[in-house]
């Protein structure tokens, strides 16, 4: 609403030379008040993700029904369905008095659904959508997102930030940033679906499922730690000074390119395995022999009692796949596929039990949150998530959807997303140490398989 960017609050400002100007910060409240006293307990898996943030950017082309005021109205309407999003985090210390509503009094984060709303940032970009998609770098894309880390007072800190950026041709970029404690990338992407459905005045195919006891476990005593998580928790947290600066790039693989790639591999290879193997080989470079790759899998539909798509929370399971890099791309891809297909649900439950027991220990250095994504190279499989179903105008899917996970310092992250054209086409977002990203962007192998660098690095922008 305020047109002039006269005074910009500290923290809102983008870097010098940026094409995006953020000019106002406000709070969007839901339409219907929340019943007072409502709380949402976070699962042990949610609590473990404290170090990470989720960022999703949705690009919508200009349309008559798409303007700032109407988007804000539909946001308020959809927030009525997500009382946990408009709440605030408080810590429950456990063992304090009688449990409120029969829940076991356990330690951990609890969302007090006090109806406070989500933060909204209004911004403007000095480019048209097509110009932006053609020329923006991966790091510039972060200007379309806004996030404030938790300060000393969690009770007045909003876990969600929505940035509405208007391009010169009235297209919009909707940037959602949130703490991973609340949502994993799947849940964040499906929130956009719900928002788009509310904008079109209909209901979403994936309504939110806020059910805290989905991951309720009660292990009798401290269970044995799963090896991968034990290693992560005991890894010395890297000081930000010596961690290499990370940068991101996005590669687009059109459907024919992916089909060509798959045809050169063993039959039955999934696009995720093929692309994960490709990038694993190219990022690790000339290393040979048996290596391990961490995969982050969305377990919603892989459980015996599958969770609905709209499950609100994190269902990310980390597992380690092993393959011999010298055996070539087809073998590595096949090894990844075999591993992914064979991950038992038991592993996930062991991880949840161990995280829960660890969480119940009194506050202290040993039991604090640790980095889950990384520090080793991690591939995140998100290409099964229906991200392009968020149609703000009927029949007009988003031009592009981007996803980032923050807090993954170290060797980096490779996220495989679906692409706008659907089918086998894929987008791959890599967040690696800066020089590794620059190297991969120019990598001949990757480009030979038909990749188009969409959001590259500052140095090189060859398509």
């Amino acid at each position, binding site marked *: *609403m305020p047109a002039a960017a006269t005074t910009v609050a500290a923290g809102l400002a983008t870097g010098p030379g940026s094409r995006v100007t953020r000019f106002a910060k406000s709070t969007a409240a839901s339409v219907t*008040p929340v019943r007072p006293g409502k709380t949402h307990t976070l699962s042990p898996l949610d609590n473990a993700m404290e170090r990470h943030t989720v960022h999703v950017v949705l690009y919508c082309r200009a349309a008559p029904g798409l303007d700032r005021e109407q988007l804000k*109205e539909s*946001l308020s309407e959809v927030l009525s369905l997500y009382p946990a999003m408009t709440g605030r985090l408080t810590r429950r210390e456990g063992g304090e008095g009688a449990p409120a509503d029969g829940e076991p009094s356990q330690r951990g984060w609890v969302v007090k659904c006090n*109806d406070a709303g989500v933060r909204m940032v209004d911004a403007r970009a000095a480019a048209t959508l097509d110009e932006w998609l053609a020329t923006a770098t991966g790091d510039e894309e972060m200007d379309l997102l806004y996030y404030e880390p938790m300060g000393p007072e969690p009770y007045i800190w909003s876990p969600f930030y929505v940035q509405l950026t208007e391009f010169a041709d009235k297209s919009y970029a909707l940037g959602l940033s949130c703490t991973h404690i609340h949502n994993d990338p799947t849940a964040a992407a499906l929130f956009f679906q719900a928002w788009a459905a509310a904008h079109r005045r209909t209901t979403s195919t994936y309504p939110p499922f806020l059910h805290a006891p989905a991951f309720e476990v009660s292990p009798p005593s401290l269970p044995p730690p799963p090896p991968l998580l034990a290693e992560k928790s005991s890894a010395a947290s890297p000081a930000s000074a010596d961690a290499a600066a990370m940068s991101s790039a996005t590669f687009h693989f059109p459907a024919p390119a992916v089909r060509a790639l798959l045809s050169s591999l063993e039959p039955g290879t999934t696009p995720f395995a093929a692309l994960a193997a490709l990038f694993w080989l190219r990022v690790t470079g000339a290393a040979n022999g048996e290596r391990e790759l961490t995969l982050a899998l969305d377990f919603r539909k892989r459980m015996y009692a599958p969770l609905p798509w709209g499950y609100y929370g994190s269902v990310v399971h980390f597992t380690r796949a092993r393959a011999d890099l010298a055996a070539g791309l087809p073998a590595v891809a096949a090894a990844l596929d075999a591993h992914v297909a064979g991950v038992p649900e038991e592993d996930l439950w062991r991880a949840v039990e161990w995280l829960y027991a660890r969480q119940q220990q009194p506050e202290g250095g040993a039991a604090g949150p640790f980095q889950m994504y990384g520090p080793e190279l991690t591939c995140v499989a998100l290409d099964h998530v229906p991200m392009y179903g968020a149609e703000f105008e009927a029949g007009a899917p988003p031009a592009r959807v981007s996803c980032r996970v923050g807090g993954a310092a170290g060797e980096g992250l490779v996220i495989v997303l679906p692409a706008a054209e659907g089918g086998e086409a894929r987008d791959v977002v890599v967040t690696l140490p800066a020089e590794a990203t620059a190297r991969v962007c120019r990598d001949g192998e990757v480009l030979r398989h038909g990749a188009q660098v969409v959001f590259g690095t500052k140095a090189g922008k060859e398509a």
Partner: protein
Amino acid sequence: MNSPPPLPAGNGTGLLKAVYRRVVDNFLAVVTVPLAAAALVAVARFGPEELTGRLLREARPVHLFLAAFLPAAAATVYLMLRPRAVYLVDYACFRTASNCRVPFSTFLEHAKQVPVLNERSVRFMTKLLERSGLGEETCLPPAHHYIPPYKYCTLDAARGEVDLVVFGALDDLFAKTGISPGAIDILVVNCSLFCPTPSFVDMIINRYKLRSDVRSMHLSGMGCSAGLISVGLARNLLQVAPRGTHALVVSTETITPNYYVGSERAMLLPNCLFRIGGAAALLSNSPSRARFRLKHVVRTLTGAQDSAYTCVFQQEDDYGNVGINLNKDLMTIAGNALKANITAIGPLVLPASEQLLFALSFIARRVLSGGFRPYIPDFRTAFEHFCIHAGGRAVIDELQRSLGLSDEQVEASRMALHRFGNTSSSSLWYELAYIEAKGRMRKGDRVWMIGFGSGFKCNSAAWECIVPAATAEGPWATAIHRYPVDIPDVLKH
């Protein structure tokens, strides 16, 4: 005309009181009926032919002519010089947009992020809001949703709020009444704290293309009771205008430019309580399609006393921030202003029985020096519905106590405060809309609107219903089924 309260069962004094009321209120009938009966009996005894014969014999033509002409002439002169009755055709209130809603937690979070407000001020505002009687659905204008709000409270934003509120209410009103903007002859707008150039009336004229000879006025600075002042002004103009004149009265308060950016506690109250709202009413001096009749407008100004003059005062705090200072003895002054207003309106609306009792008690207190308590007239004999300015919980409590009203009679005020907050001069119209949306209004019901405002002013208007509302359309349409709600003393949030 009068509907006395129902007979209480099994109570000796109650029965006596009811009989007394019926006798005194209909005193004229009680006296004339026996006299007329005696006259009829006398005529019957004399015989009708003898009586008329005597009359015709003794009367001369001049006498007959005068006997016919004089009463007719007197009646005609009386009817022509009587001021025209003023009617309310319909009214519409601004329907708040649901995404302008400000829950408590959001309000307090924003307050904590404003650097000027310190811990103490935020605690004070929290306590105030908890006990204020406001609910979770009150709305603030879009500019107040930004962090920090005062940077975005520009002149344009204020005009935007006026567009939203005033034009919203007027669009609703024109749709409801079917009147075309070109038929408006008089336009009165009141908005106390925002006075742009060109004024509100010019904005309305520009937007709706009103005629060039519309008699328009903008009342600014008149406080929260200005709604009834506008109605009174429109009434004065309608009373001397030709039949069929239409007057548009718009009451609103623009709160965008009035965010107090300081930490003086007495001046933080308006920030906490004032909310966005506005109403438009169409008045006319012809009874066609009218829904209410305006019977009295009584205005009482107590500004001659210093304490009343300074109790709601706009001033700068120690740091130069402008805000409205509410004095601690506001309730006492409001009570006094109310007493003065009741004394003025009482004789106009109370039935003869109550006035007699009040006069007797007044005389008794003067003559006999015993400790007689002053008799508070029972205004439930004069009115069926009460719309008390929703200035805050304390105001409504104070009025309920001093007028001896039941919870049901102040329900409209309390619920309007809960749902809409303090919308200043338009709160009376929201309360009337509540009563109608609840279906409690009947033909012949009398409504008392009481407004309070800076000055210190207490204004009253008495209306009588001709046609109640047919539907619950209006600001309460989406919420009325949830009301009345129980408002706790201290809200948990």
